[in-house]
């Protein structure tokens, strides 16, 4: 093996039924480098990683790891750990019903002299680790009590705590906000200085340019090329991923996309609250309006939306939908009122993994029609085909189980589920999570188009730029309370200041 190289993958090919996921792909990782693995949804990034960590059984190719004789073929994640490869997968795969400490040390628990698990030592070490990484948790609590972002941080903490030569991060930042991302980058730079090679998968291009040294681009399971970061500016990177030129930063808001104060009111919430997650808030939303919810992680953005939708039942206050006072105790009630909620946790609350793409798409619409009014098969297929086409969902067929789709494509399926119900009021909680640049722009355009058709949208995103591009108005949240609204000319500075608690809460 060449000097300074920790990992080479040569000629990797991998086929799933109906899809050639990887076709003769090469990948090289050097010591002390952060290497971005880029590509559109379904390009094969996660698959390549899973070939390395032994989850996928690739059919051709060779993998070499520095310090290991001969080609490496891992059969499980623990095999991979033995040769020094540590991984954070795209979908958080920790155990929600175990404590944070147990999750951090599962499989490598500190033992007492009697060879039983030394819980005290485990909790102490877990506490040290989380404190060092500035993750604010009680390590004896069950993981499920924490938000997706915290769970993601725990998964990262677990991976970086293990002795490794290669660290793989598959979209680790998808549910983190800026300050957490900075924390993560700090850790990555430290590891890099220690000579660890890091593979970093993300759809946030700025992040690539912030930390990476080199980029490998995949398209449709094939290698496009490997580039030093300086040789591949943003525009070229986008072109390499998509196979065509594309300006993902172009202005998409049409002229006059602002005032809606005189349009009919769709949602009027007064003093709505849910104990422990969101304090009483007032919110008015007009027809054709896009409102953004912004705030730090854990500020109650998702919780506010969930309370309106009835996913968390409101305990105080009143909610008027189109002027009529309603009580929503179940999501289905909200759906009948023309609402829809795309939840932020795709794996836990979004996809029905073993059901087909078609069934996942029609599910909410079928639920609204009722169990005994089954949609005809032809109608179901028509809907599935329509949204697979509109959202460019990459799937072997509409009967493929949705769990076999790539992360971004699963996200599109859930979006399709709600579009199919043709809602009047749609809540989108991180709708572009894990979605590639091209499609992200498509979804932003779609939001604006829906608003143009007279639908009201509530948009939650950790990416402020994305909200600036689509929202008419923003509500700011802090510590589980709505603290203000911003309208008029929305700029990054105003939003940042409002989030941090500045004066501009008008």
């Amino acid at each position, binding site marked *: 093996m060449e000097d300074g190289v920790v990992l080479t993958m040569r000629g990797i090919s991998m086929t799933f039924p109906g899809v050639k996921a990887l076709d003769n792909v090469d990948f090289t990782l050097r010591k002390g480098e952060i290497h971005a693995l880029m590509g559109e949804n379904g390009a094969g990034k996660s698959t390549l990683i899973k070939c390395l960590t032994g989850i996928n059984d690739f059919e051709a190719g060779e993998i070499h790891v520095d310090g290991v004789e001969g080609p490496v073929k891992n059969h499980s994640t623990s095999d991979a750990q033995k040769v020094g490869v540590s991984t954070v997968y795209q979908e958080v795969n920790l155990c929600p019903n175990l404590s944070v400490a147990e999750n951090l040390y599962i499989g490598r628990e500190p033992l007492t002299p009697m060879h039983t698990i030394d819980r005290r030592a485990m909790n102490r070490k877990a506490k040290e680790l989380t404190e060092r990484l500035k993750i604010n948790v009680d390590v004896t609590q069950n993981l499920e009590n924490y938000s997706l972002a915290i769970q993601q941080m725990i998964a990262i903490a677990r991976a970086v705590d293990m002795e490794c030569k290669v660290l793989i991060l598959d979209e680790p930042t998808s549910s983190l906000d800026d300050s957490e991302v900075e924390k993560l980058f700090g850790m990555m730079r430290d590891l890099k200085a220690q000579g660890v090679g890091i593979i970093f998968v993300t759809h946030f291009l700025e992040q690539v340019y912030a930390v990476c040294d080199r980029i490998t681009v995949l398209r449709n399971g094939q290698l496009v090329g490997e580039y030093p970061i300086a040789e591949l500016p943003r525009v070229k990177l986008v072109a390499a991923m998509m196979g065509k030129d594309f300006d993902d930063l172009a202005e998409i808001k049409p002229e006059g996309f602002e005032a809606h104060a005189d349009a009919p009111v769709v949602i009027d919430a007064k003093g709505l609250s849910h104990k422990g997650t969101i304090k009483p808030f007032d919110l008015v939303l007009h027809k054709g309006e896009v409102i953004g919810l912004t705030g730090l992680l854990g500020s109650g953005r998702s919780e506010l939306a969930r309370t309106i939708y009835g*996913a968390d039942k409101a305990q105080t206050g009143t909610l008027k939908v189109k002027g009529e006072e309603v009580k929503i105790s*179940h*999501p*289905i009630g909200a*759906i009948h009122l023309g609402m829809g*909620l795309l*939840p932020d946790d795709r794996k*836990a*609350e*979004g*996809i*029905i*993994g*073993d*059901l087909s793409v078609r*069934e996942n798409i029609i*599910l*909410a619409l*079928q*639920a*609204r029609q009722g*169990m*005994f*009014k*089954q*949609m005809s098969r032809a109608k179901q297929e028509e809907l599935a085909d329509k949204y697979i086409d509109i959202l460019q969902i990459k799937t072997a067929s509409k009967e493929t189980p949705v769990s076999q789709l790539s992360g971004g494509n699963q996200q599109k399926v859930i979006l399709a*589920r709600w579009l199919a119900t043709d809602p009047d009021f749609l809540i989108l909680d991180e709708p572009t999570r894990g979605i590639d640049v091209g499609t992200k722009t498509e979804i932003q355009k779609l939001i604006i188009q829906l608003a143009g058709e007279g639908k009201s949208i509530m948009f939650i995103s950790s990416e402020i730029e994305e909200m600036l591009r689509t929202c008419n108005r923003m509500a700011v949240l802090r510590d589980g309370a709505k603290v203000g609204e911003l309208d008029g000319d929305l700029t990054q500075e105003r939003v940042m200041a409002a989030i941090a608690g500045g004066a501009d809460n008008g």
Partner: protein
Amino acid sequence: MDKLKKLTKMKLFLPVFCMFLVLCVNMIYDASTGKPFYSFFQVGITNGLLSGRLVNILNRGSEVAILAIGMTLVVSASAGTDISVGSVMALCAAVCCRLLAGAAAPKATELAVPLIVGVLAAIGMGCICGAFNGGLVAYLGIQPMVATLILWTAARAIGLLVCDNLIVYVRNDTFGMIGGFVGFFPTPIIIAAVCILVVSIVLKKSAMGMYVQSVGINKSASRIAGLNSKRMIFICYLLCGVCAAIAGVVAASRITSADSNNIGLNLELDAILAVAIGGNSLGGGKFNLAGSIIGAYTIQAITTTMYNMGVSSAVAPVFKAVVVIIIVAIQAPPVKAFFRKRSAKRASLKSGKEAAAA
């Protein structure tokens, strides 16, 4: 070759294959004992009643088949099993017979109330039991095994209470018909067929199948998408109770009495096995009703085959266990993966040779 591959990939392949194996064993055994090899399939009329081993299996397997319907739904929606069905059968049988016997209990020859009243009362009892189980599992979030353990122990005892600790006989032809014959045809076969048909039609014509599976796969996601996950689980347990009641009435009618100590004894295990043999994951989610039904009759076929071979009823369970281990093992994922890999290797070797030859 390609066709064979497609066949083995089909969902129903394994349960059908298991059934086929049992049939083969029968045929070989028959041939070796000098009977014609097709004697298994011979259907005749003895004493004016339909007879033959095949008929016997379909007849005797009715109860398990009916139970398997409910069990399949419960397993799918809640990723757990209802172990109370056997006891609930006994309780429902007791309620039915007690009502039918009326004042003449414990030995009646005349029906004290119309047959339909007795049957409906039994089904009502099944509903209550199912609702009790469903309530515990769906609304109180108790583990299915633990929740149904309550009725597993209690239902049989309540059945005895209902009958004052006696076996209540209802030696009446109308009642006997349920577990006996209409004309020359065994009634239980018809009852099982009707149950299967009704449930299949409901599953086909409504979205219930998708709802149940969706809830079984991901409860919270289903709720967000507008399904009432808890209610769905509740309904499945309710239906399972109804199935148990029907099976209980059939079983009681077969012996024209409510023998709370024996009706449905250990039948919950057969029902769960039927679901497993049918290729359904006991971890919930996707289900395959046809598989469970075939599984139920396969279990009965194994039992009948063993009696036919003269295996004594004391050691029969041992053989049954061995057969079941084999059937379940060939469906286990590692074994399946092993065979898949082998066939893939063979295919790649073959294509490699072809390439070399070309």
